């Protein structure tokens, strides 16, 4: 019986050591993953905001006006309907 217990202890010891090592390494790997995902989430969030900012800038009246000015489209015409009502009234 005593021998059996001693034998058991010698078997359990490396198993426990290996299990511990496995848990320790897994913990480190999971920590690494958490760190990486945290960074990626932050990066994606920043990219998302940057794209949103860019889209709204390109969609703005301010940008349209600046492009129009660059292209020399500066003349505003009064719609003909205000001067000639037959178009507005569809006659």
């Amino acid at each position, binding site marked *: 019986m005593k021998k059996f217990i001693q034998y058991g202890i010698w078997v359990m010891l490396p198993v426990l050591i290996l299990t511990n090592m496995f848990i320790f390494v897994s913990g480190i790997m999971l920590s690494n993953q958490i760190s990486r995902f945290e960074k990626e989430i932050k990066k994606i969030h920043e990219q998302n905001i940057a794209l949103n900012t860019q889209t709204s800038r390109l969609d703005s*009246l301010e940008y349209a006006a600046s492009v129009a000015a660059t292209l020399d489209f500066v003349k505003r015409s009064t719609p003909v309907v205000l001067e000639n009502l037959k178009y507005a009234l569809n006659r």
Partner: protein
Amino acid sequence: MIRIKFLLLGFFLFFAFVIAKLFYLQLIKPSTPFFDNYLKTRKIYPERGRLFDHNSRPLVLNQNSYLLYLEPKKIRNQKELSQKISEVLEISEASIESKIDMSKYWISLKSGVEEEQKKTLEKLQLDGIDFDYQMKRYYPEASLAAHLVGFVGKDSEGEDVGYFGLEGFYDKDLRGLPGFIETERDIVGKPILIGTQKRLNAENGRDLQLSLDKTVQEIIKRKLKQGLESYKAKQGCVITANPSTMQIIGFACLPDYDNNQYFQFSEQYFKNPAISEVYEPGSIFKPLIMAAALEEKKVKPDDFYDEKGAVQIGEYRIRTWNDKYEGKISMTRILEKSSNVGMVYIGDKLGNNNIYNYLKKYGFGETTGIDLQGEAAGYLKPKSNWYPIDFSTVTFGQGIAVTPIQMIRAFAAIINGGKLMRPSVVEKIIASDEEKIIKPKVERKVISEKTSEIIKKMLVSTVENGEYKWARPKGYTIGGKTGTAQIPIQGHYDPSKTIASFIGFAPAENPKFITLVMLREPETSPWGSETAAPIFFEIAKELIVYYNIVPDK
């Protein structure tokens, strides 16, 4: 046996060293970077709510921004560092060097660093600098609606706070709730899984959808700017609203400021003149008194008044604006020619009590409740302090101090069937899980629908048969009234300094918009008919096209 004792002694010394080191690190010198990072409790800043126009187009968003900080212990070449940062951020080398204190671990150098600047600095691979993520406001349309939007500044603790306009009024909704994260980290900053890991997510601020239309805003601001330049006025405001709901569609005052660079402007620019400054409205006030007299059945539109000449009230003599008198004129004609003496007659018919009661009913002397920070109540003195001349002059809009927003609200009430509405800018508050719609609120009924219809016709006639012929859009019935109020300076009126205004609506049958144009001290002409009115008709032309309004005559 001796060997075992040596081994035990070895273990004992090793553990004694570990305990001594821990004692040193935790109690004697606990502020090393490692222990700062061991248990991290970090505030998670919520994203401030965004502002969208009526068509869900962005007016105010958030953009990436960074706090540049230094870790002096890691700096190798202080001179080179200051020089390179100075080149990228355009701040003087001396100011950077004055901030560097080599005895500190962490120094905040500049907040609000833009993404491009951050990338440039990162490429330089400087030792001892790093960035913290922040957010700042982004205005895709620049300062298109500066006074209406307000700006985000800092409070005494360095936290973001909204000031003025919507940013100020809705600050609590926009700022959201911060969260926090408490996490145990190892020496390289990675989370220790079996340690403390608590996280309470931040609740982002609520987005606001406004009744404001970006296109209308662009139109009114452009026209106002042109008007200010043409008529050489000191200041100007244009408010456009839906008259049946008093939801603001456009709201511009000039001069204004740049929301992004607000700190470069003095405080006087931040005040919104359309809600915070009072003025004497002048003749645009006349339709309000006329509507009250019609409602009380003291006069009828086809009644006649004999306009013989100037009227004496106590020691004061009241004249028409051009000192010309037409004899028998109708009530409509009183408005058409903007007769002051005619209005004194109507005031007499209405009676002092009624005049005062209607001023209260129209909401003068109280705030309108518009959802913008910094509204003034105007001033309506107690009835016991009114002299007989006050009851006469108030009929043509002198001797009373009102804000432009009070004026347009009261005017909207007489053309929308008599409902005095609470003006509003926000129509929807959007949270992540719910939407709150802000419905137009009727404060009280001021006049009947019948009176409203009558006064609308009188105002159309005022535009069509008034003293001045404007370039109006053909085929559309437009109602309105001009106003020219002299500015009181040290107890008397200076005839050369006026506030010229025009308030109008179109189409008259079922008004889609009401617009108030106000110019302070125009130099080319003091009259509202020659300055504010043309701006109104220019705006009306563009709004008719934008709203695709069908000609109605």
